[in-house]
């Protein structure tokens, strides 16, 4: 069962990750920098970023505005190109990985096409890759089931709430069964209640699909609740200042949000963000 496989993968210790072959890595960034050329001169957005994300691992990128976390995500997605450094997705250059549809992506705005129904939005990536109609219909039914929108397949995006739209966007990102999911503050525009519900759903979906996830956020509890590791970044220039193992296990539910371990990790991430000495008490 996929759940078992993802369990073992997601539980990978840092030591095992390091020993893994490069192709077992979902993302490998080495010395990645990004400089934006503007009229008033070059603006460094990312500086010497090294990051490895194992297959099936859930990694959150957290940091204040301007720390380059979204830029890093866009580089991984090959929506922008790194100025220096190497970036590999499943052992391939980012451009190749994009062409091969190795990742699915979701943004802060759902970005659904308003003239397409929920089902047609979910099947857009499949259409573009020439998947047959029967197969598309079957896959859309699966996806709708996965994100709990089976009754809404024929609705249009303007008939859905913000949370439902975002679920469609997640389903669309998963349509082509990518092994890597890139998410840029996907719950940032939602109210707290919806946000927590979708977080719980996302941990379930990530486990079911066994996909690696790179998740950009600026919410500390969100990062802790979702991730295996939290990557803390700081601005000017954007760089990684800390990586915190969360180690809260595979199963995440509402009870976890009230547990002492959860608060320990939240504290750890907060201290790392604020730059004061990090207490390692919460880590194993």
């Amino acid at each position: 069962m996929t759940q078992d496989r993802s369990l073992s993968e997601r539980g990978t210790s840092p030591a095992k990750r390091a020993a893994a072959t490069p192709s077992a890595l979902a993302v490998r960034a080495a010395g990645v920098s990004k400089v934006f050329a503007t009229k008033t001169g070059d603006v460094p957005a990312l500086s010497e970023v090294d990051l490895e994300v194992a297959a099936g691992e859930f990694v959150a990128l957290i940091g204040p505005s301007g720390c380059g976390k979204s830029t890093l995500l866009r580089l991984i997605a090959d929506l922008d190109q790194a100025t220096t450094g190497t970036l590999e997705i499943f052992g391939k250059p980012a451009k190749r990985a994009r062409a091969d549809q190795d990742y699915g992506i979701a943004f802060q705005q759902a970005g659904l096409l308003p003239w397409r129904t929920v089902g047609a939005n979910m099947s857009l990536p499949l259409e573009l890759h020439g998947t047959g109609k029967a197969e598309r219909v079957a896959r859309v039914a699966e996806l709708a089931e996965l994100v709990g929108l089976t009754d809404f397949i024929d609705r249009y995006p303007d008939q859905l709430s913000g949370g439902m739209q975002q679920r469609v966007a997640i389903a669309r990102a998963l349509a082509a069964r990518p092994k890597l999911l890139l998410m840029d503050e996907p719950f940032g525009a939602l109210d707290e209640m919806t946000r927590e519900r979708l977080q719980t759903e996302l941990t379930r979906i990530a486990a079911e699909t066994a996909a690696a996830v790179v998740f950009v956020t600026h919410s500390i509890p969100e990062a802790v609740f979702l991730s295996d590791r939290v990557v803390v970044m700081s601005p000017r220039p954007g760089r990684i200042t800390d990586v915190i193992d969360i180690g809260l296990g595979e199963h995440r539910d509402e009870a976890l949000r009230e547990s002492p371990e959860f608060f320990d990790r939240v504290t750890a991430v907060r201290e790392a963000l604020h730059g004061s000495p990090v207490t390692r008490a919460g880590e194993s």
Partner: protein
Amino acid sequence: MRAVGWSARRQGEVRGWIAAGWGALGVLAVLVLWELYKFIGPAEGVVVFAVQGQAGSGVMILPRTHDRAMPHVWDMVARLFAPTSGGDTPPLWVSVAGAALVTLGIAAIGWLIGVMVGAALGLVMQRWQLLEWGLLPWIVVSQIVPLIAFAPVVNAIGNQIDRGGGTWPQWLSVAVIASYLAFFPVAIGMLRGLASPDRIHLDLMRSYAAGYWPTLLRLRLPAAVPHLLPALRLAAANAVLGAVVAEVSIGMRGGIGRMLIQLAGQASSDPAAPWGPTFGSIALGLIAAGSVALIGLGLANYRRGEAA
């Protein structure tokens, strides 16, 4: 859910009737104003700075109201049902309708040519920024050239082709001139519409490794629909206007423009007659713009973004 949907539709219906009511009221207001001014205005109008003993001098600031200058609205309507030119000739409205159909057909062809040319221009301008820089100023300038100056040139070229062995009927010149006015809004609407998708949608298509054509078909063209529909409607009105003016300036027979000029020439003896083809061309414009609006009904799903 159903109750909400139903009441929303009901609301839309009511709003539609209210809009129609205001429209009718507007038309009525024009008629009332016309008759009111005719009633209270001086028969010979008001002329200021007139020099004594010099006919036609001075500036007329209020028009004449006598029956030759401003026929009664009911006379105009009655004239529609009188014979076109006396005797056994068919009623004026029949002649007007026939002439209007001729012009409508030519305008439709002009509209089609204009839409195709405009769409093609919009497409290439969106595709290659360099072409936008190069073409857009010329497209704007093209609309400044007066139609009256441009029409005889097209006609002359057409005649040369016709004499040189090709076939170039006169109506084709009229259609080409109509298309000259029609292509402009389509080119601009197409350009703006194709460039309208959000950054996030373009990023998404890029993340799917979708090239130019898939992006055009699945994103840019659907997103352009809300920009294109008003452009097509404007193009339809322009095509009618262009066809009427072109008929007049190159002297094509059979259309409503020619009829308008002919009857206006006899206005001193038959003042209500030119109003027949005038109403005809108004109806023509409305029919043209209305038929294009029908296209919009079929594309309602592509306009969902407009409400949000």
